[in-house]
């Protein structure tokens, strides 16, 4: 017989190969999957047994151990049996049972349980093993959740017996019961248990409702899990479904708008890590990135290699009570990521997800065309008394020697040339399964996104294998393994400028291509009097490619020492290897060029092993419940880098081979943390909750004597809804008050306390380089952690069987030993600042989350929303008058844009106030002295009234921090149709629109926006655009309210509509091959309501750590994406 293998068979074979690889990898030694074990196999299993004159009970115990099965029976059925003796090297279970009971019982096999019952109860028939099949009443059915989706894994039990089963991946079950007096019990975590008498029915389609009290709902917390109802901390859980709603490569991006208090700002460049800020800006000097803990491994961000489809849940630990268990690294919040495991339903689940889409820039700016540019340039230079570029008089010359086209005939739209329609696609396949002993989850995925600007993209392959196994009755061994590899082609920064900056400034009469130039691209020359970089050339020719391969694996062993004491050891490692390849070929486009090709080949390795020992105590004493943990943990991290560079006189060599000026440098960074952790969670009568923890961390990052720190926390909660006076209030299903306080730390970089001699400079003697060594920084032996003290008060409420839920939080966090850079006096010659714990900053705010779900009828829908409010106040810097001014950039007006100062929010915009335009020389003369001002220039406000416009007239102009940020999600289901709308936005933030400095600033001759055509002239006085005058003598483009814009936006982040083929139809059509099939269409950023005039109000940060957030230097904008997707289950 040569039947085609069914798909499940093939997948099992595939899986076996994978398993073999895993064993090779040495990560897991005992993997044995068994499926669909049937009763007959168990009964036929042979064991060796020697007993002399033992009771039936004792023999049954021995069989249980030897055969790893379990007997369930009423005590009386073994009571009156005689002692017997057996001596057999191989005897089947069936034979043994017949021997013991002398055919006086029924036995039935459920999983690895054998249920024994008395013959007298069942009737007079002769007992044989076949009697198993004589349970006549077969019950079948489908279990769904409140929204009609099938629920796999629901327990179905015949009440008062151990006879039971669980639903398969389609929510179906099949159970034989004794008779129609039986009562079926359906139970599932998070849902109310239902009991239904069998009666005359044999088909039970049951819809389970969420548990009114959500008693069993469990959330992942640090080093364990906790019932949601018992949590006294501020934890936001984001489901796998929410994480996977958007076609974004990283989990951080997927968190945007999903949890109150979590602000995610993405740069639109593919593969670029977004900024994630939990409850505000935690640090002035450091990145304020949260700590990520994936399956127990703590690590720093960038999850672009990680496939979000593998994520079971994401928990955001926001307050001290939840986060301080991660001690010295938790000050910016903690994001716990738990990856998927297989279901224990003895079934194989195969799921294929795939989508393909197209992305486009959703907005373009109005830039000058050729003739407008000449008109503007003439005015700009003439008004400054400067000579016009020779080109303006020779526009009729050919664009290059031999061309028939003239400059006057050339019109290049550089936005069209640089932006493009870019494809995006992802395909993931997962196989999972499990039974009582083992479970596994295997997935593989591919993601590819091209950027909407030429020369950018991100591509990724990923593989995950998770499994765990009961290797003995009380011992579980498990592992997770992730391997991902990605390639990111980064945005070019020709001349240190963003592509958008070069695109805006590029002259419209210059052709994209010029075959007479080295490299073949067009550009300006001395004749044009303007020197922008051709952004298309750099996008196409220059390469900056980052390859990363990351392996993340854990191996754990958990032993139940007693019923209430578990020991767990977790060994894991995070390994990353990266290569940055930069290739910059020789070119000459006129002003700009490169006479030698430059190659950089930078390698980096990161290895961070972690070793965790944990004891967990979990016991109930009457009304008292205690869960306590003790943990000892060691984690180290070693980063090494090797950077090589060289030059070539030709463009032929693409690797560091035979190049000139080859140079190599290497670095190594090591850190070690030892941690001792204790936590106790105590509950009394399910009403009064207490959680207290302490973590003691020792870190290598500080000087001897400063290495250890303690991070305690305490939280209390009161479940008012459990009190007698509320217990019967049917409308209120949950009401809990909670509060917490704790301390969290932040570890700065390695070796900060030390002063180090560096040998990275050269002198040139006799034409040869000679290495030089120097030190440019003073150390600080007293340096220690930044410690954040945090208070949180929260309330959770649920009404009408939790149809309507609401929670609110208030938090207040202060850090009074912020590590700041203390700049040594310039004249001491130390160029690098010394780090010292001197700053003080406070963040406080509110968070609200509400949800409503309607689950009855054909139309099921739910609506959830969240709002986060964060306020920030810097309370102390190095001194009362100390300010940190940042953002000055010659291309953006050359004055600092933000100021950080005690008494104001961190990095507030800071500059002059405009007061209209001088209309006449008289007005200039009568106003406060303003150097170089002339009619047509902006009049600035003399705020201090000293009669002169100077640095003292600057004022605070607003903050990049929003008044609030929010997310709103609506999902609905009608029969096979589903729809999701996800809105997200921020309100009340300011953006310093640097792109408008480029388009309206008129600093030097470059292409500009059409606004400059409305520049002030003696005959065009009714305008708010100042006169065009080259080099901006009045400083019209200095930092002022002129370029501050409202950055609020309301955005339809995601809309998707899907259709699922009814299961029966699908099974019929596909001959049972497909279990489910959903097709959907979706769009991201379909519309955005904003007054912001730049490309996109959601601006990532260009310099992530330099107090310049909220300044739009022309960052990569978000794309609008349309996609179609397919989800298939087998």
């Amino acid at each position: 017989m040569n039947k085609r293998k069914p798909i499940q068979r093939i997948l099992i074979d595939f899986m076996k190969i994978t398993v073999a690889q895993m064993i090779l990898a040495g990560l897991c030694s005992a993997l044995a999957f068994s499926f669909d074990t049937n009763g007959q196999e168990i009964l036929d299993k042979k064991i060796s047994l020697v007993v002399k004159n033992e009771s039936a009970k004792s023999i049954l115990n021995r069989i249980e151990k030897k055969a790893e099965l379990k007997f369930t029976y009423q005590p009386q059925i073994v009571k009156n049996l005689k002692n017997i003796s057996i001596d057999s090297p191989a005897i089947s279970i069936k034979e043994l049972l017949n021997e013991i009971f002398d055919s006086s019982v029924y036995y039935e096999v459920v999983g690895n349980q054998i249920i024994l019952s008395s013959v007298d109860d069942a009737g007079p028939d002769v007992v044989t093993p076949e009697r198993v099949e004589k349970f006549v009443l077969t019950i079948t059915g489908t279990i769904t959740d409140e929204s009609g989706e099938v629920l796999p894994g629901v327990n179905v039990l015949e009440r008062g017996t151990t006879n039971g089963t669980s639903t398969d991946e389609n929510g179906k079950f099949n159970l034989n019961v004794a008779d129609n007096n039986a009562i079926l019990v359906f139970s599932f975590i998070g849902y109310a248990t239902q009991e239904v008498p069998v009666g005359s029915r044999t088909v039970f389609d049951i819809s389970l409702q969420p548990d009114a009290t959500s008693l069993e709902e469990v959330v992942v917390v640090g080093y364990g899990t906790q019932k949601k109802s018992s949590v006294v901390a501020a934890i936001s859980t984001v489901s796998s479904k929410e994480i996977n709603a958007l076609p974004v490569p990283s989990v951080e991006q997927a968190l945007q708008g999903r949890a109150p208090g979590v602000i995610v700002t993405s740069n639109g460049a593919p593969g670029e890590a977004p900024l994630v800020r939990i409850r505000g800006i935690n640090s002035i000097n450091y990145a304020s990135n949260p700590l990520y803990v994936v399956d127990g491994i703590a690590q720093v961000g960038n999850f672009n290699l990680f496939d979000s489809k593998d994520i079971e849940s994401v928990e955001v630990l926001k307050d001290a009570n939840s986060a301080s268990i991660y001690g010295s690294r938790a000050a910016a919040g903690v994001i716990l990521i738990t990856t998927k495991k297989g279901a224990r339903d003895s079934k194989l689940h195969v799921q294929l997800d795939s989508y393909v889409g197209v992305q486009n820039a959703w907005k373009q700016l109005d830039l000058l065309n050729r003739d407008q540019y000449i008109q503007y340039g003439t005015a700009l230079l003439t008004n400054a008394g400067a000579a016009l570029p020779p080109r303006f008089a020779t526009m009729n010359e050919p664009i290059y020697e031999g061309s028939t086209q003239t400059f006057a005939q050339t019109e290049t739209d550089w936005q069209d040339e640089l932006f493009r329609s870019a494809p995006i696609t992802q395909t993931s396949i997962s196989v999972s399964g499990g039974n009582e002993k083992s479970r596994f989850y295997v997935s593989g995925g591919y993601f590819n996104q091209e950027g909407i600007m030429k020369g950018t993209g991100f591509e990724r392959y990923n593989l995950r294998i998770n499994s765990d196994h009961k290797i003995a009755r009380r011992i579980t061994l498990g592992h997770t393994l992730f391997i991902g590899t990605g390639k990111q082609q980064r945005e070019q920064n020709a001349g240190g400028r963003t592509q958008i900056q070069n695109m805006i400034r590029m002259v419209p009469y210059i052709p994209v291509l010029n075959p007479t130039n080295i490299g073949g691209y067009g550009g300006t020359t001395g004749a044009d009097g303007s020197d922008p970089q051709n952004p298309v050339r750099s996008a196409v020719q220059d390469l900056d490619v980052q390859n990363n391969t990351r392996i993340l694996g854990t191996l754990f062993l958990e032993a139940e020492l007693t019923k209430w004491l578990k020991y767990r050891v977790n060994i894991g490692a995070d390994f990353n290897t990266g290569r940055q390849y930069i290739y910059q070929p020789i070119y000459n486009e006129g002003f700009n060029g490169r006479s030698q090709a430059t190659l950089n080949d930078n390698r980096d390795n990161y290895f961070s092993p972690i070793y965790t020992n944990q004891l967990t105590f979990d016991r109930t004493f009457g009304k008292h419940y205690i869960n306590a943990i003790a943990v000892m943990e060691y984690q180290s991290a070693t980063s090494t880098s090797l950077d090589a560079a060289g030059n070539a006189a030709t463009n032929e060599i693409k690797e560091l081979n035979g190049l000139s000026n080859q140079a190599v440098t290497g670095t190594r960074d090591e850190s070690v943390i030892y941690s001792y952790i204790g936590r106790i969670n105590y509950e009394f009568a399910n009403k009064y909750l207490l959680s207290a923890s302490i973590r003691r961390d020792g870190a290598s990052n500080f000087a001897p004597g400063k290495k250890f720190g303690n991070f305690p926390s305490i939280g209390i909660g009161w479940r008012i809804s459990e009190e007698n006076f509320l217990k019967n209030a049917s409308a209120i299903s949950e009401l809990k008050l909670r509060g917490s306080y704790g301390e969290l730390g932040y570890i700065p970089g390695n070796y900060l306390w030390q002063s180090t001699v560096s040998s990275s400079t050269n002198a040139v003697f006799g034409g040869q380089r000679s290495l030089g060594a120097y030190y440019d920084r003073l150390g600080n032996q007293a340096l220690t952690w930044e410690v954040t003290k945090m208070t949180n008060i929260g309330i959770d409420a649920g009404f009408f069987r939790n149809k309507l839920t609401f929670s609110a939080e208030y938090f207040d966090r202060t850090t009074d030993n912020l590590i700041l850079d203390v700049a040594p006096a310039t004249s001491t010659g130390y160029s690098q600042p010394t780090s010292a714990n001197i700053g003080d900053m406070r963040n406080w705010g509110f968070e609200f989350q509400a949800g409503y779900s309607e689950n009855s009828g054909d139309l099921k829908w739910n609506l959830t929303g969240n709002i986060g409010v964060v306020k920030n106040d810097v309370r102390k810097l190095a001194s009362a008058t100390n300010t940190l001014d940042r953002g000055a950039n010659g291309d953006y007006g050359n004055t600092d844009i933000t100021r950080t100062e005690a008494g104001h929010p961190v990095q507030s915009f800071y500059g002059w106030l405009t007061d209209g335009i001088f209309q006449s020389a008289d007005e200039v003369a009568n106003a406060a002295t303003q150097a170089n001002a002339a009619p047509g220039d902006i009049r600035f406000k003399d705020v201090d009234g000293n009669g002169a416009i100077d640095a003292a007239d600057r004022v605070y102009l607003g903050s990049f921090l929003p008044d609030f940020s929010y997310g709103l999600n609506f999902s609905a289901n009608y029969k096979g149709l589903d729809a999701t709308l996800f809105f997200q936005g921020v309100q009340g933030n300011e953006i310093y629109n640097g792109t408008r400095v480029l388009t309206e600033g008129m600093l030097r001759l470059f292409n500009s926006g059409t606004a400059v055509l409305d520049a002030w002239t003696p005959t065009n006085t009714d305008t708010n655009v100042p006169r065009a005058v080259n080099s901006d003598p009045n400083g019209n483009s200095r930092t002022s309210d002129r370029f501050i814009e409202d950055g609020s936006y309301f955005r339809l982040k995601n809309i998707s509509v899907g259709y699922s083929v009814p299961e029966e139809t699908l099974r019929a059509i596909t001959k049972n091959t497909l279990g489910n099939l959903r097709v959907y269409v979706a769009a991201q950023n379909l519309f955005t309501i904003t007054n912001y005039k730049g490309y996109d109000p959601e601006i990532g940060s260009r310099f992530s750590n330099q107090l310049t957030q909220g300044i739009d230097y022309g960052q990569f904008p978000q794309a609008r994406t349309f996609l179609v997707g397919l989800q298939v289950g087998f």
Partner: protein
Amino acid sequence: MGYKSLKNGLMVALLFAACNEADLDKLNPNGGTPESYYSTADELTKGVNAIYGKAQSIQLVAREWFFLHDLRSDDVASGGGQLEGARNQVLTGAHLPTNSVLTDVWSGFYRTIHRANSVIDGSANTKNISDELKARLVAEAKFLRAWAYSELVTLWGDVPLYQTTVKSLTESQARTPADEVLQFVISDLAEIQADLPLTYSGTDVGRVTRGAAQALLGRVYMERGLEYYDEAKTELDKVYTSGVYTLMDEYSDNFLEETAFNSESVFEIGFANDQFNWDADGNSAGNVEGNSRTQEYSAIGWRNLIPSNGLIAEYERTADGFPENDPRFSDNFYRIGDSFNNGSEVLTDALVQGNLSLLGGVQEKISWKKYTSLYKNNATFYTGAMNMRIIRFAEVLLNLAEVENELGNASTAIGYLNELRNRPSVSLPNYPIAGKFPVNSKDEIFKAIVHEKRVELAGEQHRNRDILRWRRQDKLTTEPISYFQENKFERLPIPQVEFATNASLTNADQNPGY
């Protein structure tokens, strides 16, 4: 596996896991500590090299130092719209204490001083080194420190003085009177001469020579005041009679990449490669040690600065009644129609952007040629390996001329000037120049010196220093700086950042006028 034995094993593992906390002691493996470094000949040498490396960085000789001196002089004018704002402010006297050009030069010199102090202090612990080498290395460090202080005093007047390494944030200093700083400089420059060789060979060429220390000391004595011209003469004479230095036959050999470290070069900062190192301190993983001078001044490209009309007019032309045209004009400047790129191309009006100059009453585009690489290529974005001459023998001759004239030795003074005019590539008639530069009196000779110095050293960062000194010494008959304002422009403002970081200074310590 037996459950009991497993349990016991795990408990042992748990205890064992309380590992060795000595792991927590980590020292930066990427470099030594300042306390232990400078202990070998190699380390001390590298310490000294780093001082040169700093002098060669963007804050100093690779960029901001030549900009600052040139912009403050009357040698240059704006080339047009490409000149960045901060530079234009210095050019027009609109600079504030926040100006980035002057701030960079200030920090550049103090970082040079810090690196020198590190070596001078660290040398106390150096072992296995010959006394001779150690003395020379310390002498090099002291020279570079002296040069930095002399420049600081020239530009800012009274400045903080650090004679040893600063060990804590609280050790910042108030301003020391300029003359005290100069005395410190003078004592160092006098003391180190014996430790320095007259010349170097191979890959040491470019290190500080005895001649450099003497020439700088002569310059510093002149800076200190007229009453020190005797001492200045003594030092400059040492250079003149050392037999090491001669004028190059070809004037322009002093400004080409190929003729670096020639017999006229007394002290020179070396550059290599054609890539530019944008790190403020010249620190870098890569081997990029280029000089930005050519791309900043070049006729093609940015053309940020062009020669001023005053400087152009200073050159002797038959059209103005001089007996001959000064050939140094065409060595220093390009005009439209000149050939470049090894004679393979001709400069056209379309290639050159920006402002016009006035030559003989006619407007035309005149650009800098000195220190630009157009002589051998047509690259506009070129940052070449053009060494910068900090002291060349021509300056020693001109300083000698001034000193001798001041001391009443007229004919000796005129003789030094004529040496320059007799350089084969120049070959101009000796002074006096009838009707133009008579040399019958001290004043007339002084005028000839000023004239000769301006045309010889145009664009070489001397003019600003001379104007400041001559003004102070009451030598100027007319004020050369158009925006000059007494009690302000004699000194640059101390950078704002110094006030923000130096607890020993208050705003009242700012130079007048700012």
